[in-house]
């Protein structure tokens, strides 16, 4: 077990070091998330203003997170594949599922960093205060669920002809529950509901966060084996 965790940690560490050197994926994710917010401001500018901003804020926030997350997920395996590193990774004497969990954790870390930077920007642009501990929990659970499904599908699409194009098409219908629950919980928090009112959405997120990594754990071998 310890060995497994160490191997997993090594993959996460490798991803972080590689990312710190190039900052390729991170900068793209961050700039794209900002652009999504800007596009939302253009798109809803005349319709929504003042108090009503509150109504579109949760949706805009999660669309920004999801789209930039897709950008990051696409790179997670495509970059390995392009450099021929995926084969090397698979030849390493580790259980293939350790690769899945390593990749998933590094994706979660990248997404969380982007999201942490987005919060103040979003707060400034939309004029709603997002600094709430419960909201952090929702963001964490939502990101985990998103990356859990996204990582296995990204491993798959990186090996197809369509690659980047295919990932959102496969991913979005499957993560629809995450999106619904996360947006609902976020809206509840912004509306000042008490914890028990948003508890069912949190339960749904937790269930999702457990079920899909478990499913991926069972099936990841089939995705990467030759």
């Amino acid at each position, binding site marked *: 077990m310890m060995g497994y965790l160490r191997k997993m940690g090594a993959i996460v560490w490798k991803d972080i070091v590689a990312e710190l050197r190039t900052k390729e994926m991170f900068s793209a994710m961050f700039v794209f998330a900002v652009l999504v917010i800007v596009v939302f401001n253009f798109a809803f500018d005349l319709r929504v203003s003042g108090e009503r901003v509150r109504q579109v804020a949760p949706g805009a926030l999660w669309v920004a997170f999801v789209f930039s997350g897709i950008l990051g997920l696409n790179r997670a395996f495509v970059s390995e594949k392009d450099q021929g590193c995926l084969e090397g990774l698979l030849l390493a004497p580790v259980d293939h599922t350790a690769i899945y969990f390593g990749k998933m954790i590094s994706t979660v870390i990248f997404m969380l960093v982007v999201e942490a930077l987005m919060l103040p920007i979003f707060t400034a642009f939309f004029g709603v205060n997002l600094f709430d501990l419960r909201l952090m929990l929702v963001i964490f659970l939502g990101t985990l669920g998103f990356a859990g499904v996204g990582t296995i599908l990204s491993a798959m699409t990186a*090996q*197809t002809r369509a690659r980047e194009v*295919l990932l959102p*098409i*496969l991913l979005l219908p499957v993560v*629809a*529950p995450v999106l619904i629950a996360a947006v609902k919980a976020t809206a509840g928090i912004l509306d000042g509901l008490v914890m028990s009112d948003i508890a069912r959405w949190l339960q749904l997120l937790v269930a999702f966060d457990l079920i899909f990594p478990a*499913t991926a754990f069972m*099936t990841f071998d089939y*995705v990467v084996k030759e």
Partner: protein
Amino acid sequence: MKERNDRWLLALSALSAVMILIALYLALVGAPDADLQSETGRYAQRIIYFHIATAWVGFLSFFVTFVAGLGYLRAQERKWDIVALSSAEIGTVFMLGVLISGSIWAKPAWGVWWVWDERLTISLVQFLVYVGYLMLRTSVQDPARRARFAAVYGVVAFISVPINFIAIRLWRTQHPLMFGSSGGGLGPNMMAAFFFCLVTFTLWYVTLMWYRIRLECSRDDVEQLKQEIMG
């Protein structure tokens, strides 16, 4: 052997054709009028006999794709992949049928073509899953890898269906409840017509599956013959 199978298939096709005709009669004429005020409403509700049966096949197909996917992952045999593919293709068409027939009913009943109601949304999401599944297949060249990827996606997407259903149900609902305990729903005579349609559509699905599987097998045969001639 092959000829005898063909005879069975012919019989099955004839049986489904006859049953579809009977189902049409039952749905349009045989079943009693619904207890509704508006005349359009009374006519429009007759679509449910086919609408729900179509939805049933639409979701059943994906269950079959899921089971065949598991079968493929276990055994890595081509036959499982053929079943999964055939069922997914048929399911896509039926799911599209659900969306279209639902919209046709929604216009007179609700006054709009579409609302983001729970069952409409889940049907749309299911349809998009099917589309993704088929697009994934066309995007992978190597047959073994294609079958593996499709099987994995079939499993992952199938598991998401109930979670999606719960999420969307919590989110909103305004669909008429067909089998509620308190009022509404279907009367006994309507129930008979309804279940007849359900059986008919299931049989129709089996027939279509048979044709589709046969087609895929012939395609494999042709491929093999080509290989033999070429080299």
